[in-house]
């Protein structure tokens, strides 16, 4: 190999993520095709929520944190009201707990289907993308029926929930779940049994268990690396300790394991929702909070991407004194530094997307030139698709490509 091939070049991805539409800047440092290092710059979407929150009352804060993310717009308000309730030392009524779990799990289903669709798009399987997003639509319609909104459900308030589930809505939710379960089963089989997808995703972007622990990653990213953590089971809240379900843990740590964890979690979410709907108790859906005494409270819940952590300190007034918010991607994106190293550029976009960083805004990517290499988001997509196409050629059964006997 000549010296020219060992020259390090920089491939910038961002500040708009090539496929996830999120403003982040990844600086890939490559030798030829191989990624040797990664620098991450964030802050393009910093909106100062921790600064704004102390200016608002406890009733207003859940609306503020709901707007942190459009995809997991139930996780932040849920963790926030859990923190306020922990600080005030009150417990919501049982019916509110069950409704919280139902809405939270519906959100997990739609978020995981969204990710599966995008992952399919990255590797050139646009059919997977269209399927997954089509079945996700049924879940969004259920949201619209229960809360009046397809997103930003405003479901949680300190002391309970805002929306009740009426008896006549339950058969409709169950019908939607049956349909989504059947179709997700088909999608899961199609994705997990496809030899090309397996060859494309297995062994790509591996995060080992030791690395996952050292970087304290959370959610499906941790569970796909063999770290058995799930806040729903470990720190029970809402109705998660009252219905049967399982935590999906896989040891491999590659992108395929992450996809598999998410697909299998959809079925566990359906199980939780069915359990909650069957046991939904009667009674009020909220309690009154007269005051939040001076002190501190921590609330956390398992968002589709991992643990959401909210810390609130109160001075006895109607506003928080300090409100710390930590989204799961904060821990997961940082771990990309180790997951992407050693892979090829064609795998980089996929590996960076595999932690499912949450997205917003429109797709756009700035391509700078350093040395002779220049990649745009379309280029990276093309590289990824080409690799899939090569694998497809190689894995095609011989009788299809062999000589004709006629």
């Amino acid at each position: 190999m000549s010296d020219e091939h060992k020259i390090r070049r920089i491939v910038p991805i961002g500040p708009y993520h090539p496929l996830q539409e999120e403003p982040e800047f990844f600086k890939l440092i490559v030798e030829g095709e191989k990624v040797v290092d990664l620098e991450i710059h964030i802050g393009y979407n910093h909106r100062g929520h921790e600064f704004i929150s102390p200016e608002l009352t406890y009733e207003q804060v859940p609306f503020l944190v709901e707007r942190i993310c459009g995809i997991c717009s139930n996780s932040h308000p849920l963790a926030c009201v859990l923190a306020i309730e922990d600080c005030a030392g009150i417990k919501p009524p049982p019916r509110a707990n069950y409704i919280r779990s139902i809405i939270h799990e519906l959100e997990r289903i739609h978020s995981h289907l969204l990710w599966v669709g995008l992952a399919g798009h990255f590797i050139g399987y646009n059919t997977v993308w269209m399927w997954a997003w089509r079945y996700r639509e049924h879940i969004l319609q259920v949201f619209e029926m229960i809360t009046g909104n397809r997103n930003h459900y405003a479901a949680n308030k300190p002391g309970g929930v805002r929306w009740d589930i009426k008896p006549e809505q339950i058969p409709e939710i169950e019908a939607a779940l049956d349909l989504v379960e059947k179709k997700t089963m088909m999608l899961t089989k199609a994705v997990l049994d496809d030899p090309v997808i397996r060859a494309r995703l297995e062994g790509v972007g591996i995060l080992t268990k030791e690395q996952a622990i050292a970087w304290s990653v959370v959610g499906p990213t941790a569970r796909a690396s063999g770290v058995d953590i799930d806040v729903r089971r470990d720190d029970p809240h809402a109705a998660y300790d009252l219905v049967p379900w399982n935590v999906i843990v896989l040891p491999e740590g590659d992108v395929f394991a992450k996809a598999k964890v998410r697909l299998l979690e959809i079925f566990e979410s359906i199980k939780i929702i069915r359990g909650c709907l069957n046991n939904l108790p009667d009674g009020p859906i909220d309690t009154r909070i007269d005051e939040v005494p001076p002190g501190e409270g921590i609330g956390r819940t398992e968002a589709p991407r991992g643990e959401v952590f909210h810390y609130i300190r109160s001075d006895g007034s109607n506003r928080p004194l300090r409100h710390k918010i930590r989204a799961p991607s904060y821990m997961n994106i940082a771990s990309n530094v180790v997951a992407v190293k050693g892979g090829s550029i064609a795998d980089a976009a996929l590996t960076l997307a595999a932690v499912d960083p949450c997205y917003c805004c429109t797709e756009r990517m700035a391509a700078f030139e350093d040395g002779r290499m220049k990649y745009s988001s379309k280029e990276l997509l093309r590289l990824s698709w080409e690799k899939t196409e090569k694998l497809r050629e190689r894995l095609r059964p011989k009788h299809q490509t062999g000589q004709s006997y006629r």
Partner: protein
Amino acid sequence: MNVSLKLLLERFPQSEVFEKNPRRLYIKIPRADLTAVAKFLHIEQGMRLSICTGIDTREGFEILYHFSEDKSGVIYTIKVLAPKDEPKVESLGTWFPAALWIEREMHELLGIDFIGHPNLIPLLTSDTDWEPDRYPLRRDYEQRNEAHER
């Protein structure tokens, strides 16, 4: 009593424990013990660093390290106080990569120095024209006071 908490109190007798409820423990420790306590919790007890919180209080900067013990569901919040005239603590990022980003963020928003941090550059405002020595989460930050006067 919780096993890890008992071991912690045996090893570090100066710690003051406040039990908000069985799953939320707040432990105040001297600033000098921070690295030893964090190593005990993460390496020996296998806890995960959820996040850190920095708060500007009357007494000084309180830095809270929220460690999560996932097998029991307990959050151990370690509290360290750094005086206002010397806002410095040891960095955990030197041996624990999970703390690298949050220490940069606390340095940027509160002006706390983390001794030994390998790369203490701003995390959120690195590509903006934000002036480096304005700390928005401090109580004396001018725009916060304006908002309260309104």
